[in-house]
């Protein structure tokens, strides 16, 4: 990633130098680009030329809730059973996860990413959660029965906020989308894992909490053991 960034920087410098030659250094580069656009019919937006932003912009929670509800409803029309629906939501989340990893490594970590198991888990639990859901996840625990299992739990997962699952849909959990995000982040960082979302009843609470169960693949644990 660092190499790629360096290359882009060079390319940009070259492009700017060429432009300076053509227009003289007096006009702001941005303006020039607009002027160049005048003669041409269409110039497609280039996402790399825009600044990344600090990620502080906000929209209303309900705008997200409406959108998420459409995502779920649409996917319901494309499947025959709950498992398939969860898989499709997970797929959608996976794409988000890959992008979030890249974005946050660049913005928060100075283009470095975690290479150790606990490091990446705490990155998901704190950095990713905070950026996407505005808070650190309620808890991060190691599974008691299996060495390769970890759990991130949330009392009220943002995506489940306005969702009640009908009785006939059994254990379906829209958190599958978030599980997909986690899977995307982990996979992208080189920690392949099976990730799933489950409801866990909490004593004295009307609503169950959601637990994201992470089961790392064998190679990850072997590597971790080697690294000591």
């Amino acid at each position, binding site marked *: 990633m660092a190499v790629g960034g360096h290359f882009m920087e060079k390319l940009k410098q070259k492009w700017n130098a060429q432009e300076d030659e053509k227009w003289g250094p007096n006009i702001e580069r941005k303006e020039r680009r607009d002027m160049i656009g005048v003669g041409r019919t269409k110039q497609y937006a280039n996402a790399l030329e825009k600044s990344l932003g600090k990620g502080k912009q906000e929209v*209303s929670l309900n705008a997200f809730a409406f959108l998420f509800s459409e995502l779920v409803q649409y996917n319901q029309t494309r499947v025959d059973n709950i498992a398939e629906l969860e898989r499709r939501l997970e797929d959608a989340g996976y794409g988000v996860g890959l992008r979030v990893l890249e974005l946050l490594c660049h913005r928060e970590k100075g283009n470095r990413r975690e290479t150790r198991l606990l490091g990446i888990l705490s990155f998901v639990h704190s950095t990713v959660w905070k950026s996407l859901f505005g808070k650190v996840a309620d808890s991060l625990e190691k599974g008691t029965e299996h060495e390769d299992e970890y759990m991130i739990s949330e009392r009220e997962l943002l995506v489940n906020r306005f969702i009640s699952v009908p009785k006939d849909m059994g254990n379906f959990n829209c958190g599958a989308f978030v599980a997909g995000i986690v899977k995307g982040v982990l996979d992208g960082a080189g920690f392949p894992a099976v990730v799933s979302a489950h409801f866990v009843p909490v004593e004295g609470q009307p609503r169950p909490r959601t637990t994201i169960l992470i089961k790392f693949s064998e190679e990850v644990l072997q590597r971790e053991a080697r690294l000591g």
Partner: protein
Amino acid sequence: MAPLAPRSGDAVFANVERVNAELVTLTYGAIVRQLLTDFEEVEEVNKQLDQMGYNIGIRLIDEFLAKSNITRCVDFKETAEVIAKVGFKMFLGVTASVGNWDADGTECSLILEDNPLVDFVELPETCQGLYYCNVLCGVIRGALEMVSMKTEVRWVRDMLCGDDAYELKLKLLEQVPEEYPYKDDE
């Protein structure tokens, strides 16, 4: 009780719960990608996005009316202003400007300076003809239909396609008269 004073978009937005715009941007991107994979044709994707927007719009209008205290608009001009200044602000945290009115006052442009849906987005060649933000057209159309206005909403300028702004054309087709007395459910 006297009717409550209408609230500005800023005031409503300041009081609603908010989330990071990037969550919405990326989730919306995931939806569009899924549609593109499922349907392959951009035309069909445009249609689906519009339909999703419509589904959102017919529900969103309730929240809009409840939170903004906006009452009946005197004419379509006011309606467009309210959408641009209160509607957009309240949900997406941005405002639009209204312009390009036709002579009858039934067609205008909504121009978005800022659009949280398109961060990080670049359309590949294969997606030409895709109205990436078509969901917004559906939202406006759906919401207005619930307040007795049949409209047509379409994109005319899109920065993702190389234009210099995001511009929606909003056209009032028909003002559906309300039926009175209202029928109870039989």
